[in-house]
C-alpha cells in the first residue's frame, strides 16, 4: 500500500500518530492505555452497547464511545478524567444490579472480564436493594450451557456465530431487561458446536459442557498444542489438572488460527482418556491378543521382523506411516524403514497430492505456498474442490473473515454444495468427480461442458484474469497433472499466485514432507536420485535401496496375495480406510505390528500391538496443510503408552543387535528436528520462533519433475466432516455426543444444508 497519510490526535495529553479510520479504543490500546470494554470485539461488528468505553472528547458535550469513535486530526481525547472514571463505575453498577454475584461457584471466576473490570473500575459496595431477575440455567447441547442471569448482553456470541461462523444459530429473545440469548431451536442449539460463543463470552453465561463445574482456572496448568485433528493446525490451549486434560480452548489467540477453533479442536480431546485406550503392549498368543510386558513385546517384534527378513527378502516387509504422528517420528520411520528394515515399501494414506504440488512447483515452491494468514489477507481466493466448511474449518473461517473485513473475493469450483459458496462471488458447481476436468478447461479450454457450466467457468476465468495475488486452494480431487494445469494457469495470473493443497489430518503434510512415500525421500527428494539416496544413506548410516517401493494400496494387494510377509503400521488404520477386493486383505501376512492408541480394525488383526502416545502426550513438531510447522508439547503423561519416537528408536537398537542396520542415535525429538532442519529441504525453520509458540513456514524447494502422476487411488480424502476425525474421531465421545454428530452426513446433503439455513 502506498504511504497513507497519517493523522495526529491527542490522547491523555500525548500526541498519537495513527492511520485514518483508526478507532480511539484501538489507538489507545496501541499506546498501552486500557479503555475498558465489553461489547467491543476486534473484527466483529461495532455495537456501542455496553457503554463501558465512554471517554471525554474536547468540543463534544457528551461522553463518546471509544469503540465507535474514529480518531481524527486534532481530536483531543481523555480517558482518565473523573467524569470518565465515574461513568465506568456507574456502568459497572448498572451491570451488576441484576448480575448474580456467584463468582465463587461460577466457572468463569478467575478469568471473567466482568470480575476484572469490577476489580479495576467498579464500586466497592452495592446499592441495589431490589429483587434480582431469575432465570433457570439452560442446557442447549451436551457442549453448550447458558445461564441467563450472568449474561451481560454484549452480543459477542451472537455476532461471532453470525459473522464469524456464518451459522447464525443464536439470537436475542425478549426485550429490555428481560432480553436473553436464544438458541435456534426451542431451548436447544442445532449448529456446528464450534463453541466459539463460549470462548468469546466475557462472563460465565455460556459454559462448556465438558468443563463446567470441574475445577477452577487457577488449579490448572496450560499447554498450547496444535490441534490433533484436521490439517489446519489450530493452536488449542489444553487446560490440565492431575494429569488430565479438562478443557481445550483458545486462550491466547497466538496461533495461526487467531481466535478460531472448531468443535474438534475444542471438544475433541477426551479420546486421550477413553476407557478403550490401550495401556499395555499386546501380543498374540494362541490366536488371542494378550497383555505383555514392554520387553516381551519389543523382543517379539524385533525377532519376528528379523525372521521375515531372513526367510524372505527385505522387500517383503512393508511400513505404513501416519497422518498424525510428528515430523520427527515420520523422519525416524523413514529411516527405520529404509535403513533398519531395508525396504522402500513405505507409504501413508495421502489425503492431498502434496507430491504433485511439489512436482509442479519445483523450486518455485519456496515462495509459492500460501499460509493461513495469506488466505485471510488475499484479495482473491480460488477454491477448487474440497468442502472446506467441513473439512478445513480454519480455512473456511479465514475466507469468511477476509470477505467481511476487506472484501476478499472467493471463486469456487466444486462438485459438492458447500456452505462457503454463500461467500463466493462466483461458484461453479460441476458434477462430482469432474473438478479436474474443470481445471483442464481453465488451463487449456479443453473438454466439453453443458453450455451453462462453460459460461460460468468462462465468467470465473475472466474474473480471475482481473485479479492479483490470488491464493489457490485445492482438495484431493486435484492431483498430478491437474495440479500442473492449475499451477501453470494460475501462476500466470496477476501478481504473485500462491497455493495450498488441502489435506485431511494434523500431520498429513508433514508425513509427505518427511518422505513417508515409496518413491520420495524427505523434502520430496526423488528416490531415483542417487545423490539424494547417498546423502540420506550417509546421514542414516546405511544404504538406501534404489528401487521404488510399493504404495499403501500396493502393499495391501501384495499382502492379500501373500507377497508381502510383514507389515509395520504406525498410527494408521488401513484395514478400515482402504477396503479392497478381498474380504481379508492381510491373510498372507506372517507378521503385523501396529503402534496404536486403540484396538482399531487393523490393530485387532495385529500380532503385536504397541500402545502409543497421542500428540498431546509428547514433544515434536507438526506441519499443517499450509506447511506451517509448530511444536507440540507433552501436556499430560501417557500413563503406559510410549511415543512412536521412542518405540522406533528402541526397536532400531534391538534390531541392530540382531544385525539389522545401525541404531538410531537421535535421542530426543529436539535432536531429530535439528537434523531435519539441516537436511530436509525447506525445513530450515527458526527454532526460536517455534520455541516461542509460533509457526514457521516449511517450503521445500525440490527439483522440478517433468510429469508426475500419483499412483491410481493413492490420494484420496476421507471427507471427514465437523464431527468426524478418521478413526480417532470415534473415540472422541464428546464430539459424537451431539445431535448434529448423529445426523450425518450432515452438511454435504442438501436436506441438512437447508436446516442449516433455517
Amino acid at each position: 500500500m502506498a504511504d497513507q497519510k497519517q493523522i495526529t490526535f491527542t490522547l491523555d495529553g500525548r500526541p498519537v500518530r495513527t492511520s485514518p479510520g483508526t478507532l480511539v479504543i484501538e489507538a489507545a490500546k496501541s499506546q498501552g492505555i486500557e479503555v475498558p470494554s465489553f461489547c467491543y470485539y476486534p473484527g466483529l461488528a461495532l455495537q456501542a452497547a455496553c457503554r463501558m468505553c465512554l471517554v471525554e472528547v474536547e468540543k463534544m458535550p457528551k461522553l463518546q464511545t471509544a469503540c465507535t469513535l474514529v480518531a481524527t486530526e486534532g481530536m483531543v481525547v481523555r480517558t482518565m478524567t473523573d467524569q470518565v472514571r465515574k461513568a465506568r463505575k456507574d456502568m459497572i453498577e448498572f451491570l451488576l444490579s441484576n448480575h448474580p454475584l456467584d463468582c465463587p461457584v461460577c466457572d468463569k471466576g478467575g478469568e471473567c472480564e466482568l470480575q476484572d473490570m469490577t476489580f479495576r473500575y467498579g464500586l466497592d459496595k452495592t446499592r441495589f436493594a431490589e429483587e434480582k431477575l431469575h432465570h433457570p440455567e439452560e442446557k442447549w447441547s451436551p457442549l453448550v450451557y447458558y445461564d441467563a442471569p450472568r449474561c451481560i448482553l454484549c452480543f459477542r456470541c451472537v455476532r461471532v456465530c453470525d459473522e464469524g461462523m456464518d451459522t447464525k444459530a443464536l439470537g436475542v429473545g425478549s426485550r429490555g431487561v428481560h432480553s436473553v440469548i436464544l438458541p435456534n431451536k426451542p431451548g436447544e442449539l442445532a449448529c456446528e458446536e464450534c463453541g466459539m460463543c463460549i470462548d468469546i463470552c466475557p462472563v460465565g453465561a455460556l459454559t462448556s459442557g465438558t468443563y463446567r463445574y470441574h475445577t477452577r482456572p487457577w488449579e490448572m496448568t496450560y499447554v498450547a498444542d496444535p490441534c490433533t485433528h484436521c490439517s489446519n493446525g489450530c493452536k488449542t490451549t489444553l487446560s490440565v489438572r492431575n494429569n488430565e486434560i479438562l478443557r481445550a480452548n483458545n486462550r491466547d489467540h497466538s496461533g495461526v488460527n487467531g481466535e478460531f477453533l472448531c468443535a474438534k479442536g475444542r471438544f475433541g480431546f477426551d479420546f486421550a482418556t477413553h476407557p478403550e485406550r490401550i495401556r499395555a503392549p499386546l501380543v498374540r498368543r494362541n490366536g488371542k491378543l494378550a497383555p505383555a510386558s514392554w520387553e516381551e513385546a519389543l523382543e517379539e517384534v524385533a525377532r519376528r521382523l528379523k525372521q521375515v527378513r531372513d526367510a524372505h527378502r527385505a522387500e517383503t516387509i512393508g511400513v505404513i506411516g501416519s497422518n498424525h504422528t510428528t515430523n520427527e517420528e515420520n523422519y525416524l520411520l523413514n529411516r527405520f524403514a529404509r535403513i533398519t528394515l531395508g525396504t522402500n515399501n513405505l507409504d501413508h494414506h495421502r489425503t492431498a497430492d502434496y507430491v504433485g504440488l511439489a512436482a509442479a512447483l519445483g523450486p518455485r515452491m519456496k515462495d509459492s505456498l500460501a499460509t493461513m494468514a495469506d488466505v485471510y489477507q488475499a484479495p482473491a481466493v480460488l477454491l477448487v474442490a474440497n468442502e472446506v466448511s467441513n473439512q478445513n474449518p480454519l480455512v473456511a473461517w479465514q475466507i469468511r473473515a477476509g470477505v467481511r473485513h476487506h472484501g476478499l473475493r472467493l471463486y469456487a469450483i466444486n462438485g459438492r454444495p458447500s456452505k462457503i459458496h454463500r461467500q463466493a462471488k462466483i461458484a461453479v458447481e460441476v458434477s462430482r468427480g469432474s473438478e479436474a476436468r474443470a481445471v483442464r478447461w481453465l488451463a487449456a479450454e479443453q473438454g466439453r461442458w453443458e453450455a451453462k457450466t462453460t459460461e460460468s467457468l468462462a465468467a470465473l476465468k475472466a474474473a480471475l484474469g482481473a485479479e492479483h495475488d490470488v491464493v489457490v486452494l485445492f482438495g484431493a480431487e486435484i492431483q498430478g497433472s491437474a495440479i500442473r494445469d492449475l499451477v501453470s494457469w494460475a501462476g500466470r495470473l496477476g501478481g504473485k499466485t500462491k497455493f495450498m493443497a488441502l489435506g485431511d489430518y494434523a500431520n498429513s503434510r508433514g508425513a509427505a514432507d518427511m518422505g513417508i512415500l515409496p518413491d520420495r525421500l524427505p523434502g520430496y527428494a526423488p528416490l531415483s536420485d542417487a545423490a539424494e539416496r547417498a546423502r540420506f544413506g550417509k546421514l542414516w548410516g546405511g544404504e538406501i535401496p534404489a528401487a521404488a517401493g510399493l504404495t499403501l494400496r500396493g502393499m495391501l494387494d501384495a499382502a492379500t496375495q501373500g507377497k508381502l510377509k510383514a507389515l509395520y503400521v504406525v498410527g494408521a488404520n488401513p484395514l478400515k480406510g482402504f477396503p479392497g477386493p478381498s474380504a481379508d486383505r492381510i491373510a498372507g501376512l506372517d507378521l503385523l505390528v501396529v503402534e496404536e492408541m486403540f484396538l482399531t480394525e487393523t490393530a485387532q488383526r495385529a500380532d503385536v500391538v504397541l500402545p502409543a502416545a497421542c500428540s498431546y502426550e509428547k514433544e515434536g513438531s507438526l506441519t499443517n496443510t499450509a506447511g506451517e510447522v509448530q511444536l507440540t508439547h507433552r501436556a499430560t503423561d501417557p500413563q503406559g503408552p510410549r511415543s512412536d519416537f521412542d518405540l522406533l528408536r528402541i526397536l532400531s537398537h534391538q534390531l541392530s543387535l540382531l544385525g539389522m542396520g545401525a541404531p538410531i542415535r537421535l535421542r530426543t525429538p529436539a535432536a531429530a528436528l535439528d537434523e531435519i532442519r539441516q537436511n530436509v529441504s525447506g525445513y530450515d525453520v527458526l527454532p526460536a520462533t517455534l520455541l516461542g509458540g509460533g509457526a514457521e513456514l516449511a517450503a521445500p524447494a525440490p527439483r522440478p519433475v517433468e510429469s508426475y502422476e500419483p499412483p491410481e487411488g493413492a490420494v484420496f480424502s476421507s471427507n471427514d466432516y465437523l464431527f468426524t476425525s478418521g478413526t480417532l474421531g470415534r473415540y472422541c465421545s464428546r464430539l459424537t455426543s451431539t445431535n448434529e454428530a448423529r445426523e450425518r452426513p450432515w452438511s454435504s446433503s442438501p436436506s441438512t444444508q437447508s436446516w442449516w439455513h433455517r
Partner: protein
Amino acid sequence: MELPPHLDEKFRELMGRYPVKRSALVPMMLYAQDHFGFLGDEILEEIATRLDLNKIEVEETLAYYSMLRRKPAGRYHIQVCTNISCMLRGGHELYAHVQKRLGIGHKEVSPSGTFSLEEVECIGACTGAPSLQVNYDFYENLDPDKVDALLEQLEQGKKPQPVPVTSGSLHERLPAETLVISKRFGIRDSRRMDVYLAHEGYQALEKALKQMTPDQIIEEVKKSNLRGRGGAGFPAGMKWSFVPKETNKPKYILANADESEPGTCKDRPLMEMDPHQLIEGIVIAGRAVSANQGYIYIRGEYRYLIDIMDQAIAEAYGRGYLGKDILSSGFDFELSTHTGAGAYECGEESALMESLEGKRGYPRIKPPFPAVVGLYHCPTVINNAETLSTVPAVIRMGGEAYANLGTPRNGGTRLYSISGHVNRPGIYELPLGFPLRRLIEEVAGGIRGGKKLKAVIPGGSSCPLLSAEEIDLPMDFDSLAKAGSMLGSGGTVIMDEDTCMVDVARRIMHFYAHESCGWCIPCREGTSWLRKMLDRFHEGEGRAEDIPLIDELAKNMLGRTFCPLGDAAALPTISIVQKWRNEFEDHLRGKCSYQAADALAAAP
C-alpha cells in the same frame, strides 16, 4: 403449510412492497396472528421459508414486538391503557375493574377463551382517556359502567360501535386556534380524494412538480421554519438538504407514524381524517430530494389507520398522484404503509429503519445519519407524519407566510393533544409560541373540578415536567429548552393538585422500562432498577437514601445511553424528584395523601 387464500394473497402483496423480502416479516407475522390468533411453529416455518430466513431470525424478531405472541389470546383481547393520560383519568381503576369482572389478570385468557386481558402502554387515545382497545377497536372516555356494558355485549357476540373518530379531535374550533393542517377535520368524508381535492388538495403537489425545482422546494421548507413534530424539533428543510444529490443509490422517504410517546395522539386524527394531506406531503418531500419510494410506518395498534391510509394510497394511485409520471412531470413515486407491532423504540428513526427491514428494533450507531445511510443503507429522509402533513400548506402558502404564523425560528402551527385533568381534553391546532397558561386555561378549559394546577408535561412523557409556577412561557422549542424542558411531540398532559407525583414518576418509569430495547446497559438496567425502586417507594417501603439515589441513578443514565430513550426516562424522573421532593419525603412517613386510603392500607 396450506394458507387460507386471503392470507396467502396478503403475504404476496406484502412481499411485493419492499426491495428486500425480509421487510415483510413483521407485517406478515401480525397479519398471520390476526388470522390464527397466535403465531405457531407451522406458520412461522412457512413465513421463514417464504422469506428465506432461518428460524432464529424469525424467532428473535418476533420476540421483540409486544403485540406478537406465541400463545393464543382470547377472541376479544382487551387492552387497557394505564399510561399517564389514562392513569390521570382512572385508567388503573378501570383496569382493576376489568380484571375483577373477567376474573383474569395481565396476559391471561378466560377459561372459555372469549377474553384475554392486557395492561398496555399508551395506545394513542390520550384525549379520550381512559380508554382501551378490543383487538384493534378503540373505546374511549370510559368508566366502569360503560366497560361493563361493552363486555356484556361482547359476551353476547355483539360488537359495539368503536369510537367513530379520535376523541377530542372534533370540537368547535376555538378562536385561539389557527387552522392549517387540521382545517379539514370534521368535513364530511374528509378522507376521500374528491373532498380533499375540493379543499385545496394536491394543489401544492402540482405547484411543486410544475413550478418548482427540487432545490426550490427545499428552500421554501427552510424558509418556513418548519421544525420536526416528532419530538426533537429539527428543522425539516435543513434535514432534507443533507441528502446527497450525487448518488446512484435509491433514496427513501419515511413518514414516522409510530406515535407512541405517552400523551401524544395527533398523528392519529391527521391520518384518520386527512390521509391525502400526508400522502401529498410525502410525494413533495420525495420530489425535493429525488426519492422515488416512500413508506408510512404506522404503529401496529393503529390498524384502522393502516386500512384508511391503504385506501387513500390506492385512490392516489388511481388518480395519478402516485406511481409513474405523476401529473405528467416525469416524476415517479411509490408509496406504501408498513405496520409496526408494538414497540415505542421503533419510533426512534434508526430503530424504525431496522424494524422496517424486518429486524429487532435496535437503534443504529450514528453517524452515519439517515440522510446519508438510512433505510437499506440508502439516503433517507425520515419525518414525523405531522411534519410531512404540514408540507403541502408550506408549499401552497409559501414558506415565509407559514413561518409568520409562528414565532422566529419556530414556524407555523402544530397540533397539541391535551390530556389529563382539564375540562376540555382534545386536539387543538395552535401557532407556535402560544402561551402555555392560555393553552391550559383558555383552550383546554382549565382544570377539572375547579382544582389547582400542579404539574404539566409539555410534550410527551419524555419531557421534564413543569410545575404550576413555570407555566408562563410561550410554547415553542427554544423557550421550553430555556426552561429546562422540551416542546417534544405536542402531547401536553395536565395534572391537578391531587396528583401523586411519586405515582407519576413510577408510572412513567414503568413505561420506559417496558419499552427499553435492552441494547445498552444504562437504559436496560437503569430503567428496570428505577422501576422497582419507585414501585417499592410508592408502596411505602421507601428509605431516606432512596430519594437521592433515584436522582443519581437517573443522572447516571443521562447522556450515556445509546439512544435518547435513556434520556427520555431520566429527564422526567429527575425533574420530579427535584421539584416534588417533599412528596417523596411524605411517602417515607407512610403517607400518600393522594391515594384512596384503602389502597395504602392494603400495601404490605
